[in-house]
């Protein structure tokens, strides 16, 4: 009994420390790369800004799977009991979406713009036993080359 509780507490502590570290590092890299790729316009419009001298267009995509940590999972199940905002899941999905868009932009660095951007989110491991809490985000759009 004491053994089980101490394992649980150790897992919580490990999850908290490594989860916070990884999230901080990830947000830092996301901000840096967003700054770098700011010049490439990305819109959800169906038509390009102007149609003159378009050489070609191509489907581009970026995807990422991000997992939750043990501490957040526990926190979420607690909040689930009382009700309210599960902010730990919000940051997880936010990170995944921004990462997917960044990967899409990196895939089409020399494009002049990206139009009709769509984002799809799915939890790939929903129905598994002892499930892995992870989300997959796919961003896709059409890159226009001039």
């Amino acid at each position, binding site marked *: 009994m004491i053994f089980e509780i101490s394992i649980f507490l150790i897992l919580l502590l490990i999850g908290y420390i490594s989860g916070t570290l990884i999230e901080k590092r990830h947000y830092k890299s996301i901000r840096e790369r967003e700054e770098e790729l700011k010049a490439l316009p990305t819109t959800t419009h169906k038509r390009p800004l102007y149609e003159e001298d378009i050489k070609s267009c191509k489907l581009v995509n970026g995807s990422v799977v991000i997992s939750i*940590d043990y501490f957040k999972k526990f926190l979420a199940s607690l909040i689930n009991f009382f009700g309210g905002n599960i902010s730990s899941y919000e940051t997880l999905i936010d990170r995944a979406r921004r990462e997917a868009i960044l990967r899409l932009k990196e895939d089409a660095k020399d494009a002049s713009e990206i139009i009709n951007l769509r984002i799809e989110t799915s939890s790939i491991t929903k129905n598994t036993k002892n499930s892995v809490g992870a989300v997959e985000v796919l961003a896709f759009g059409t890159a226009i080359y001039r």
Partner: protein
Amino acid sequence: MLITNIEYIPNREIIEHFGIVSGSTVRAKHVGRDMMAGFKNIFGGELKGYTELLTESREEAMDRMIAQAQSLGANAILNVRFSTSSVAAGASELYVYGTAVVIR
């Protein structure tokens, strides 16, 4: 083969429609990767194995869609959509569909 997710191709003319073309794959990860993912679930962070796997299977689904379009004699696929669903424990289905056309 031109592939886009917009409804036309700028400065080109659509001369023939072939209707819907699609491709799908169902893939499961092997046990080692599942265990690693379970392990990663304690620490948090990106599951690189899963990202790779999904990218690979999406490419395969795209290849199947392209093969179908080529067999119809199309030279472009417009308005492409993706969808992902988990059909069974540990396996996910990736489905890609679009409209095959001939452009000039």
